[in-house]
């Protein structure tokens, strides 16, 4: 079995946004509408003299227990055996229940107007035919072709890493198993598959 997961090392994410651009181009997202499958936040944290800047990439966590899927009335949101949670644009009616259910703000809408703009913007190569909710797919089409997700592939800080949690020899899996990489808000019971390595330990 394969269980995909992503590990993001906040210690080397430089907030360059290459992942955002890569994802947009790879997945033909609606950049004109300021929606993204992945974002990198640029945050000021800490107090007074100890203010600091933190870059925080985020995307769909491909939860093992995805609330977005259980609320989906059409079955458009589904989960593959390898853990990837996807939206079928042909089934989705765009009720947005999934967006309401997702605790990670990982979904955005694609409207009829977007589909029209997309045809102009991406031209003959445009793959989308219907409006729907959209989100990160872990670039499963690239995984199928033996490639890494677009954002991982290009991450100039090597902050994004990808692995198969069922492969104990995968060095990235070992990072997860070691416990230094931890998921966001696991108490919600979503069982997320995106793990973060904290960057705060190095500073007092």
């Amino acid at each position, binding site marked *: 079995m394969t269980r995909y997961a992503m590990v993001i090392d906040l210690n080397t994410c430089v907030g360059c946004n290459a992942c955002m651009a890569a994802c947009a181009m790879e997945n033909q997202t609606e950049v004109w509408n300021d929606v993204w499958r992945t974002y990198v936040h640029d945050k000021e944290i800490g107090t007074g003299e100890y203010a600091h800047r933190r870059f925080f990439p985020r995307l769909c966590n491909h939860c093992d227990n995805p609330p977005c899927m259980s609320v989906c009335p059409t079955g458009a949101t589904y989960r593959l055996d390898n853990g990837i949670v996807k939206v079928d644009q042909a089934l989705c009616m765009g009720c947005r229940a999934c967006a309401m259910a997702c605790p990670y703000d990982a979904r955005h809408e694609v409207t009829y107007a977007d589909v029209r703009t997309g045809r102009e913007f991406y031209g003959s190569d445009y793959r989308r035919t219907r409006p*729907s909710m959209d989100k990160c797919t872990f670039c499963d089409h690239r995984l199928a072709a033996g490639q890494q997700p677009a954002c991982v592939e290009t991450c100039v800080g090597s902050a994004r890493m990808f692995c198969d949690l069922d492969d104990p020899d995968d060095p990235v899996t070992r990072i997860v198993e070691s416990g230094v990489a931890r998921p966001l808000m696991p108490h919600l019971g979503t069982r997320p598959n995106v793990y973060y390595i904290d960057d705060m330990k190095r500073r007092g």
Partner: protein
Amino acid sequence: MDVTMSYATQDIWTWWIAIYLYFGGLGAATLAVTFLTDMYLKPHRDLVLWGAWSGIVLLALGSLMLFGHLLDHVAVIHVLNPLVLFYQPHAWIAWGTQFIIWMMFWGVLYALPYMYISPFFQKLWGVNRVMDWGWVQKIAELSTRYRKFIGWMATINGVGVAVYTGLLVQSFPAVALWHNPGIPLLFTVSAFSTAMAFLLLLMYVVIHDAADDHIRVLYERIDLVLISVELVIIFSFYQFMSSGDESAMRSLQLLWNDLGWLIGFIGFGLVVPFLLELRGVLKGWTSHVPIVAASLLILVGGYLLRHYIMYNGVYAYPW
């Protein structure tokens, strides 16, 4: 991971879904109450016709709100298909849609015999033509024969709709205000309370039948109970939200600093009608005006409840 959190309310499901939830609960409860009244209290043509059709119209309007906001209107076909319950049994919208459809279906069937004896429908152009068709008459006969069964089918689906509106909101785990068992309860109680108010309004303003007094009194009493239950639920929500979950505490801060919620909903939507109806039940009113006013307030309050609940769910985002 320990990270800084930011807190946000959503802007995805806004007033239109509040209307959907409101009309859904109100319409379905109205239908159910009138059918029950008709079956067990007193056969009542006008009440059934009003109840069935306003239920259907309200649900249609509410559903239209939802439908209009869909991203892909054609794909709605997937939830109209009854098999959806086998594929997506965990999705409340799937249940809700089926409840709505079948409530409407059984509701029309139940009302059909009454339509034949209603001067209004006899004159209603188009509808009267349809009622003349042979197979429609056949159905009306069957409907008369299986009145109780059909009535219960409609009622069950109606109650389903009312409960569903709460279950739907409850199914979003990120927001503590929504993700708790109190919400379906609150929405169901509110649905029936608004339905009572709606029917009282109807009976005081449109139907005016002195013979219905006992029904009105019953409705008033039930409504009084429902409002008190609602007040208890709101109070326990306050208790639940004031400690524990950060998301809930933020919702609480938003709600209990909002005059629309405090004065609009709790004050004029619950407490004032409660007092008006209490006095009506204890001492009686000489005029209809206080009860009519109370009913109107309850109806507005019903919308406000859903509006504020939708707008004040707080997501806690770890970035």
